[in-house]
């Protein structure tokens, strides 16, 4: 009898040891909201591995529509939001996320200094990956037609012309030009590429009615002539689908989506083997790429108990533990900012973007209002309903109305 008793005791002791040394233990609920691209799916799954309390994730492309509301209640529904430098602004503006300095000291020994997003000397978010839009193209087609890889948007246009006349693709350029957020993002890229500044100095006064604005719009129009005529309804998912189907030869695409682009079912071998990645393009003879740098990271809600905040921090730290990038599939998903990361082939584009001094997307409290105004007003120009000057003054008018309402002007 004693033997059984001892065996039982020893086994349970061993289990206890294993559990404590490998698994992540939390004592309060964790609930995460975030975007749905592959790297974030990995992070979400990592948080869910923690035991001891419930871990929920809600990963959706609509995360920006729900995170503010979901973190405003007392207590907040979401204890953590995975955000980028664009979407953190709404959370900062509404004062919904807490400073993490204490938790970083207690549990953040595995973090590198450049992962800490500090605002006014307080850590407000922990970044885990970098992202940027860059060129994705079909090497096989370019080689066949003897075209060199475009380094500027002007070269992209002439390449597109050659591809179209060769008959290999009718609409060789792809772009996430869906009216709204996507279209505005493409304008921002181009506008920055032409040396434009969205605001006057450090004020919320708009500054898009400029030569750079006009040139950016005209370049977008020229590009759209080589796109699928439905381009105003295509977001990055639809644009990727066009690339997979072999209809698109050149496109400006997110690094976070490029790596796993051809992993889907039914992609032909020609596309799989022919796909290649290059850095972002410049435009108009400028030396700053027509692209923006992004980081993705996680935050911890303000309106939750300290126990929940600690549990969330531990779970999210577990999710971005440097050991996750030992898996080749995961390593390929993004440009990880984690310790021990060495760039994969798929990361070349984003690395090139960082090396070329691409402008980071501005973390300004009123940047989101400008972004929405641009997204709503450019569609008329892209359809040829009005000229560039009218569109740019429409953007400023729409932004002014919104900024006045939100108390910035």
């Amino acid at each position, binding site marked *: 009898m004693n033997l059984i008793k001892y065996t039982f005791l020893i086994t349970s002791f061993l289990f206890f040891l294993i559990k404590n040394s490998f698994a992540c233990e939390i004592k309060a609920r964790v609930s995460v909201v975030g975007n749905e691209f592959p790297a974030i799916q990995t992070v979400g799954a990592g948080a869910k591995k923690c035991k001891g309390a419930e871990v929920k994730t809600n990963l959706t492309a*609509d995360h*920006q*529509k729900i995170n*503010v509301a979901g973190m405003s209640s007392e207590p907040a529904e979401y204890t953590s939001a995975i955000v980028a*430098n664009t*979407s953190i*602004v*709404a959370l*900062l*503006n509404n*004062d919904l996320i807490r400073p993490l300095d204490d938790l970083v000291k207690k549990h953040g020994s595995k973090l590198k200094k*450049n992962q*800490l*997003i*500090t*605002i*006014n*000397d307080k850590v407000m978010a922990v*970044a885990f990956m*970098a992202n940027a839009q860059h060129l994705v193209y079909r090497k096989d087609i370019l080689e066949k037609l003897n075209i060199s890889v475009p380094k500027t948007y002007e070269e992209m246009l002439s390449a597109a012309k050659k591809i179209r006349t060769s008959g290999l693709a009718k609409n060789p350029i792809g772009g996430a030009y*869906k*009216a*709204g*957020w996507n279209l505005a993002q493409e304008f921002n890229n181009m506008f920055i590429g032409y040396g434009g500044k969205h605001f006057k100095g*450090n*004020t*919320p006064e708009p500054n898009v009615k400029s030569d750079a604005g006009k040139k950016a719009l005209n370049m977008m129009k020229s590009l759209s002539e080589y796109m*699928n*005529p*439905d*381009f*105003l*309804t295509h977001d990055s998912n639809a644009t990727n689908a066009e690339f997979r189907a072999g209809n698109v030869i050149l496109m400006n695409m997110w690094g976070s989506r490029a790596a796993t682009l051809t992993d889907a079912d039914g992609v032909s071998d020609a596309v799989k083997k022919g796909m290649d990645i290059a850095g972002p393009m410049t435009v108009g003879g400028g030396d700053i790429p027509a692209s923006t*740098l992004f*980081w993705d990271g996680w935050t911890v809600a303000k309106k939750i108990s300290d126990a929940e905040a600690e549990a969330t921090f531990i779970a999210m730290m577990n999710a971005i533990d440097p050991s996750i990038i030992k898996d080749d599939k995961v390593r390929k998903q993004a440009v990880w*900012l984690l310790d021990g990361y060495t760039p994969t082939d798929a990361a070349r584009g984003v690395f090139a973007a*960082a090396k070329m001094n691409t402008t*980071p997307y*501005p*973390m300004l*409290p009123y940047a*989101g*209002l400008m972004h929405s105004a641009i997204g*709503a007003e450019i*569609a008329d120009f*892209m*359809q040829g*309903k009005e000229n560039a000057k*009218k569109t740019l003054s*429409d953007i400023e*008018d*729409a932004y*002014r*109305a*919104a900024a*006045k*309402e*939100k*108390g*910035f002007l």
Partner: protein
Amino acid sequence: MKHKTFFWFILPTFLAMLIFIFLPIISVVLQSIHTPHENVLITVENCDPFGCKKVTSIDHEATKKLNQSDPLGKFVGLDIYFDRGHLAIEKFKLIWNNSENIFSFIKSLSNLPFYKAVFFTLTFTFTVTPTMLLLGLLIALGVNSISKKLRGIVIFFSLLPMIVTPLIGSIILFWMIDSRGIIGNLIQWLFDDPNLSLKASTTLTWIMLIVYGVWHAIPFSFIVFYAGLQTVPKDQLESAKIDGANKFEEVIYIIIPHLMPLITFVTLMQLMDNFRVFEPIVGFSAEAHATSLSWIIFNDLGGETRQLSAAATSSILTIIGVIILLSPVLLRTWKDFKFKK
């Protein structure tokens, strides 16, 4: 009914209306005449993986103090109603003075987001409502005249468009009418134009949304009219036949007058339904070509910017729109009621 009985009878309904309809509207009105306080802006140093730099940020302590002293926000009266996102009074005057004729006036006006949405919403409402009334009646008459054995299955299939959730229905159609989809390809083949795209042209997008609206709404008018047809008095139809009326005259002089109350009912419901058109615009990703009042509200509320006051103002303007739209029908019903008395 005695007044006292009537009072107790109506009380629960009245209370429910007060709590679920009247109070929320009051709150929306309050929201629409207030905006958030002005943000106190400060310059701070931000650091991220790409380096540190000085940027503008909100001073939360100072802004919070303002909010606590006046939690409703800043009173702005009708400012939001008159700003560019809504009635745009200043721009309206400018366009009115600079336009040569009514067409250029409407064209310039439709550049403003609110008027653009109003034009589409009204076009949608006044094309879909009559079309679906007429088609619904025709289908009901058709189904009523086929053999009883077949009727069940025909009714089932006629109701399908209404059973499909609007958002799902429109997303399915969105891919079918894609220039590489089955319907999109068919249309390109029919018109012999490989560049024709339904999604790229504003006119075609409007037509597509209207056709979708009719497709989705027909089952409702059909089933109501079909039920009404079962109550048409047989003796009247017979005497009409004896008097030598043909099928068409029977419909005009007997069936339609008999169905008139139902036609009013369906019109009323559909005017309201179509005025708040929303799902197809999202489903068809049509916001570049067509927006509606409901879509504007959704767009202001969602996104990272969350313009609550703008959304509240659009809601109030929508309510006013519905009241104006329904007033002729309501007036008519009121007159009928008084006449009968």
